[in-house]
């Protein structure tokens, strides 16, 4: 497959699943979790490059570890979940700062910072496709459970939903998506791809399901517009996609009712 086709396909798949995750984390008031996990992923990349391990694998491991730490701290401070992500983010940035100092191959590290959507290998395409299908299936199957938990965790418990298990599955899913998507859209941008489409969607949507669908639509619009601009003007794709999203959000903000 030609590289541009691969790039478009991966970008489209990622923009379908990131807002699905984003919806839950925004509504749970954990918006910064993407940043914490992607920086933990970066720390993993730095560690991997230092010790000669596969950076993608060490990124996934670090991202999962960070996700579990966040879930652990979050349970200790109910209602102040953002503290858990802030603590983990600082930890990850610290680790990245220390280990990236030992990385010889700066170009390879940079490709994780801003992504390399147009340089995706066949294997990475397969991994992304499988991952997207898994997240899509989980998102559809766990729709009601995740909706209930984000709205009212105690009510969900009373109704017999296995809240702990669903939360853990969701956290792992988030970590894997963040780590893998960092490779393509970049660690610094993945969080915005989770949050901005949801922010736009919350301005226009009139139901939970509508919010979910509209956030995916927005993400697709940003990604495709971003890729077209990239092709026309030879700019970096990741940043262009995010800036397109920000432009749309700014345009929509006046319509937000208080």
């Amino acid at each position, binding site marked *: 497959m030609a590289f541009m086709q691969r790039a478009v396909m991966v970008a489209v798949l990622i923009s379908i699943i990131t807002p699905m995750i984003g919806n839950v984390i925004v509504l749970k008031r954990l918006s910064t979790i993407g940043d914490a996990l992607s920086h933990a992923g970066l720390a993993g990349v730095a560690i991997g490059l230092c010790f000669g391990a596969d950076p993608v694998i060490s990124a996934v491991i670090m991202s999962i570890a960070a996700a579990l730490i966040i879930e652990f701290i979050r349970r200790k401070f109910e209602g102040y979940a953002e503290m858990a992500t802030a603590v983990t983010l600082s930890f990850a940035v610290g680790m990245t700062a220390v280990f990236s100092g030992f990385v010889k191959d700066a170009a390879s590290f940079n490709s994780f910072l801003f992504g390399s959507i147009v340089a995706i290998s066949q294997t990475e395409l397969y991994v992304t496709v499988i991952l997207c299908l898994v997240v899509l299936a989980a998102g559809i199957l766990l729709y009601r*459970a995740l909706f209930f938990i984000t709205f009212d965790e105690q009510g969900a418990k009373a109704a017999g939903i*296995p809240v702990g298990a669903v939360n853990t599955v969701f956290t792992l899913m988030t970590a894997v998506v963040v780590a893998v998507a960092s490779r393509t859209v970049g660690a610094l941008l993945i969080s915005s791809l989770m949050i901005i489409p949801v922010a736009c969607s919350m301005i226009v949507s009139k139901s939970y399901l*509508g919010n979910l669908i509209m956030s995916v639509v927005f993400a697709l619009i940003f990604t495709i517009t971003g890729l077209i601009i990239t092709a026309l003007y030879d700019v970096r794709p990741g940043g262009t996609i995010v800036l397109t999203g920000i432009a749309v959000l700014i345009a929509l903000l006046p319509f937000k009712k208080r």
Partner: protein
Amino acid sequence: MSVLTVDKLNFSYPDKKILNDLSFAVDEGDFLCVVGTNGTGKSTLLKLILGFLAPDSGSIQIEGVPNDKFKNHGDIAYVSQKATAFNRDFPATAEEIVGLGLSGRLSLFKKLNAANKAQVAEALERVGMSGYAKKLIGRLSGGQQQRVFIARALVSQPRILFLDEPTVGIDAEAVDSICCLLGELNKNGLTIVMVTHDISSTIYHADKVLKISENGCGTLVSAHDYIADFRFAHDRGSEHGNI
């Protein structure tokens, strides 16, 4: 038959003993009001029954099953004291929220079918909120939101309904209509356990009253005796007033 049995229940938070050897039973079809001053542990009692908290000692049985092994989640429903404390911008409609209440009757992955949607519409109808089905929950008034939460509890057609101060912040007329609704549901066989400070509007629908005192002990009296006591205290009070 007793559908809820609480036996020698003890519970403390790290710094404070809350419930002290509390025992009582609720029979099928009972309407029990739980009363007591602020901070005596009424909400805590409901949280223990529902399994959110674990007791220090004692047992709780729902439909004859220890509450930590209880699996018929659709048989019980709960309206919490903080039901309306969600984020105002949460994007969900009243009918979507009510639909969540069917979770206790559905397996984890199951979607709502047409029959379920009819149940949702019926539950909204029952609390007089049919016209608001498609409205965002955050755009409703506090009292309207509370009705939606009651609908969410009723939609699974539970056998026992737990409510924690469901009439707080609701206008007098709506309080009456909710209490009448609860009374009517109770006549049709629903067992109700309700924490309330607004005993005067509920007592005529209730069968029993559980009074929890400052030391965490409880006394169970019939609603009839409770009213008689109340009248007695009131009459004595007014005698003094007359002197």
